[in-house]
């Protein structure tokens, strides 16, 4: 076990150093990403104004808080992309990972976790500017901060597992882009990424309850920016734990069958 811990430490440390080298690239990438929540925020603030100040009880300031926390959660959510599996499988990049004595999943988890350190550092000034411009209203208790700090890592783990499973479809076919886009559309609409889930029509909100997506966006955001009850706070963490376990099980099963189909192509 201490062997695995040192793998995590070394890989995460490498990620920090590598990504610090690419800080300009990282920054431009983050700035490009800010466009998305800013657009949603402006649209919903406009709607709130038109409706006399709030939509279903959510005021302009609440929307600002929601989408500013969104930017941090989104950055925590960035994991190995399913599109990357095409390179791993078609060009044989996986071969090198297979001869290592640890499961390749550990490498991805450790690398992206280390990257987060850089990302959060770069995120701080962006958050400050957004706060000055959009004037969010926050009402945060210490316990919410605590739950939030756990929940963003829960979100990270859930999304890592889900996108690993999705990416491994490439073991069977490389024509995957349409499938991926369908997946990301479902995630966009039902996770809280596009809009706070209470604004969904009732049937869609019910669907969202039964899917894992909300635990990667909506739940962590609302811990900090919404006002969840104590039961909802802890219940969310429990649900996250359940989805992490389910996701890990899915990764294990799909990996077992998928990797048998892998034939090292290229070098």
């Amino acid at each position: 076990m201490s062997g695995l811990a040192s793998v995590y430490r070394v890989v995460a440390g490498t990620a920090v150093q590598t990504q610090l080298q690419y800080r300009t690239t990282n920054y431009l990438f983050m700035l490009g990403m800010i466009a998305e929540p800013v657009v949603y925020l402006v649209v919903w603030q406009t709607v709130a104004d038109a409706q006399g100040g709030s939509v279903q009880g959510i005021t302009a300031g609440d929307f600002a808080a929601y989408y500013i926390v969104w930017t941090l959660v989104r950055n925590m959510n960035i994991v190995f992309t399913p599109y990357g599996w095409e390179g791993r499988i078609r060009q044989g990049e996986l071969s090198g990972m297979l001869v290592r004595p640890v499961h390749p999943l550990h490498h991805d988890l450790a690398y992206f976790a280390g990257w987060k350190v850089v990302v959060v550092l770069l995120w701080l000034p962006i958050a400050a500017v957004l706060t000055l411009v959009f004037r969010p209203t926050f009402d945060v208790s210490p316990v919410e901060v605590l739950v939030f700090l756990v929940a963003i890592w829960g979100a990270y783990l859930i999304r890592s597992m889900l996108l690993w499973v999705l990416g491994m479809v490439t073991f069977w076919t490389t024509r995957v882009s349409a499938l991926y886009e369908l997946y990301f559309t479902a995630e966009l609409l039902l996770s809280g990424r596009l809009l706070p889930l209470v604004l969904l029509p009732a049937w869609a909100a019910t669907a969202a309850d039964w899917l894992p997506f909300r635990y990667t966006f909506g739940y962590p955001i609302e811990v900090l920016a919404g006002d969840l009850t104590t039961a909802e706070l802890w219940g969310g963490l429990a649900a996250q734990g359940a989805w992490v376990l389910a996701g890990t099980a899915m990764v294990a099963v799909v990996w077992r069958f998928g990797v048998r189909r892998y034939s090292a192509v290229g070098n």
Partner: protein
Amino acid sequence: MESLRLVGTFLRIGVQTELQYRSNVVFSVLQSLVAVGTSLAVLALVFSHTDSLGGWSGDELLVVMGVYVLMGGVLRSVVQPAMNQLMDDVQHGTLDFVLTKPADSMLLVSIRRIELWQSVDVLVGAGIVGFALSRLDTRPGLLAVLGFVVALALGVVVLWAFWLLLTTAAFWVVRTDSLVELLSGMYQAGRWPVTIYPGWLRIGFTFLVPLAFAITVPAQALTGRLSVWLLLGAAAFTVGLVALTRWVWSVGLRAYSGASA
């Protein structure tokens, strides 16, 4: 005249190349359908909570979305492939082969590559605009449609010049991927009319990232919001931007050091 013939030849070659990969059209259509379905769902969600957004009705916003999809198709099929090729050529020094040809280099780099199947979005976007128009209370007159066509053409030129201007930065910094990434992110903001954004952001989306001229202005033409002055302003902006791009291109070429560097 000579350059028109050149554009025609290159387009024909580009189309012929792409026709070898006909099955890709299926995937382009699928992707396009998913993207449009998402946009419609977003619009429906917003309008389930309000009946107008910054003075635009749902059907009018559908016009904006149609123009957004259409322009996105132009961007991905004609503009971006050529610009990616240009970036690669600057990095590898293969731009030499363009510069030694007896034609205008800025024109040549812009027409060398097209991705035909991405232009599915042009048709889809046009279809959305047509559908939205059929639902509007006041149909645009002949003059409005004429204004739309002119504004759309200006918009295409603005997008091309702007993307080329950014890619030209490659002469100095070699890789501009992350810059392009940044701008592709910003492009999404064009899904909504720039008039809904707060002042400073609206100015940014008008002049720094010219989404206003590429998407909002054509949509304004069809929804009775375009004045002659606005159209003239768009024309003046387009001319100015092309001139700037041309100048930066000529300066950038001098910084290009060629294959053996």
